[in-house]
């Protein structure tokens, strides 16, 4: 177990190293540099800018510096916002994104599992069909369509909620719905199909013939096993929520990390792009690690001694 986790962490660090190097050299491969676009800069100032960001040094030295700074968790300074470090940007923005993300994860798990349960218990009846329909819709409608439709209907037309911003508790409703739309649909589908499988298993028949109450069978025997596939979805769900947050924050005008990411790209603020990319990558990899470890805990049939190895 411990060996498995250590192996996974080492692997994660290797991946991060590859990503960091790739981003560094990709950014260096862009012709010109970020300061050439600003016109009429006196050569002396240009020289100072170069020195400040280390552009006067050979590339390998810049790379070593960059990696050295990364080891000390220093992600550098923004190139477009003066004296703003990437760290500050993350500190200011991540709070909002985290709140929204955690709320969205909770909502998707609760609503998704419930929907899946209801569907499986009403197999081939109206509620089942209805849930499948919602689930397919949820997977198919892009979240920016969902977000802007919600904003237009409930914010602009009905005026039930504020159109933008995140100041009072009610403001969380629309962004969280938009963020959790896809994961909810996915979890509902997963829960439904694994619940159907579990319900026809022999141990459920045994439990029933022992005369256990329907509720005990459902919660203690069926749901516990049916929930396993949902655990594997935690990793991809985090990825979904991160891409979703980029969109949702932009649409609802929330000053979270996703919005910073979009503006860093439009401004071509390279250090900020690199820093935020790495930050997102770390979050995603941690989510995957948690998934892997959690899966071993909930399902004793999985032995964590060997990697899953692809297929």
């Amino acid at each position, binding site marked *: 177990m411990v060996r498995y986790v250590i192996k996974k962490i080492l*692997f*994660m660090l*290797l*991946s991060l190293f*590859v*990503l960091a190097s*790739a*981003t560094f050299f*990709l*950014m260096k*491969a*862009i012709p010109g540099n970020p300061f050439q676009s600003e016109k009429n800069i006196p050569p002396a100032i240009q020289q100072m800018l170069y020195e400040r960001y280390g552009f006067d040094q050979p590339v390998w030295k810049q790379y070593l510096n960059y990696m050295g700074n990364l080891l000390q968790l220093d992600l550098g300074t923004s190139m477009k916002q003066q004296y703003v470090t990437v760290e500050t940007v993350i500190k200011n923005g991540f709070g909002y994104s985290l709140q929204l993300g955690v709320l969205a994860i909770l909502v998707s798990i609760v609503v998704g599992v419930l929907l899946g349960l209801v569907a499986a218990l009403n197999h081939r009846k109206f509620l089942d069909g209805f849930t499948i329909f919602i689930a*397919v*819709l949820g*997977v*198919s*409608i*892009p979240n*920016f*369509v969902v977000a*802007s*439709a919600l*904003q*237009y209907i409930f914010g*602009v037309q009905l005026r039930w909620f504020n*159109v933008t911003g995140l100041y009072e508790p009610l403001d969380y409703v629309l962004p969280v719905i938009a963020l959790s739309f896809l994961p909810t649909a996915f979890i509902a589908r997963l829960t439904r*199909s694994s619940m*159907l499988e579990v319900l026809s298993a022999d141990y459920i028949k045994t439990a029933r013939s022992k005369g256990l109450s329907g509720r005990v069978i459902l919660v203690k025997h069926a749901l516990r096993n049916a929930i396993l596939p949902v655990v594997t979805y935690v990793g991809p769900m985090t*990825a979904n929520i991160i*891409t979703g947050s*980029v*969109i949702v924050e*932009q*649409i609802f005008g929330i000053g979270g990390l996703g919005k910073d990411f*979009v503006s860093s*790209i*439009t401004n*071509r603020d390279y250090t900020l*792009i690199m820093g935020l*990319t790495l930050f*997102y*990558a770390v979050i*995603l*990899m941690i989510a*995957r690690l948690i998934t892997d470890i959690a899966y071993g805990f909930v399902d004793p049939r999985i032995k964590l001694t060997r*990697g899953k*190895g*692809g*297929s």
Partner: protein
Amino acid sequence: MSDQTLKKEDFAKLNRSEQPKELVVRESISAWKDAWIRLKENKLAMISLVILVIIALFAIFAQMMTPYDYKTNDLSSTNLPPSTEHWFGTDALGRDMFERTWMGTGISLQVGLYAALVDLALGVIIGGIMGYYGGKVDEILNRFCEIMYSIPSMLVVILLIVVLEPSMFTIVLALSITGWINMAWIVRGQVMQLKNQEYVLAARTIGASTSRIMFKHLIPNAMGPIIVTITMTVPSAIFAEAFLSFLGLGVQSPAASLGTLINDALKAMTVYPWRMLFPAILISLTMLCFNIFGDGLRDALDPKMKK
């Protein structure tokens, strides 16, 4: 039985043509035909297929249906609502939204299809090599895939496009740099399963070359999962492209994809909501149909996988 003694006449030669050895009562059905019959029974999947064909036809022929095109500005008729003149209205530069919407649909579909095709080519070749040769080759390639896979793909795609300048070519390139891994793993799994079957051993015994075994025996038999994966890749590539457009990294003006159209419409949504409506409906409908059709295809090609 034992009482009877066998006489020489009992061993008379039967005329061969008298009794056919086995009678084929029904027309023989190939696996593909069988799958097609199952698919035809799935009404939702067939409806999705028809809708997809209609959408594709509109995307191809829409420019012949109106006197306008997607890029001509007409500043005397900007921001018009839908009318008999401009069926989907016009945008801020007076460009006809009907033309732009279908043009965008075409580009989104192309991005999806090309990305799926590149995934197919790379995935089949690399996955095939991994599965067929196994051993050290498989180990090394698999490690490589795992590292690539552990890097969040959307971030790689964004970084690449920031560097490469957005165009349809770079978007497809960036999407398939990470996209092929999934396909490679599916092909690898299939090939590993199939390569020890008798018919492959038989082919090898009579001296068939590796490429012949690969493309005549292994790949055709792994086609079911491959096709399903392709159908599922298309909607996710369409979504990925739309997401890139949202970051301003999509197809550049005057060309447009559904994603760029939606992104443009968002900025003026409170005033001109109809500009949002048609691209949003089309992107959702396309992805919905691909998803339903893909589900149906999976059920039809592999009844065992049916959920």
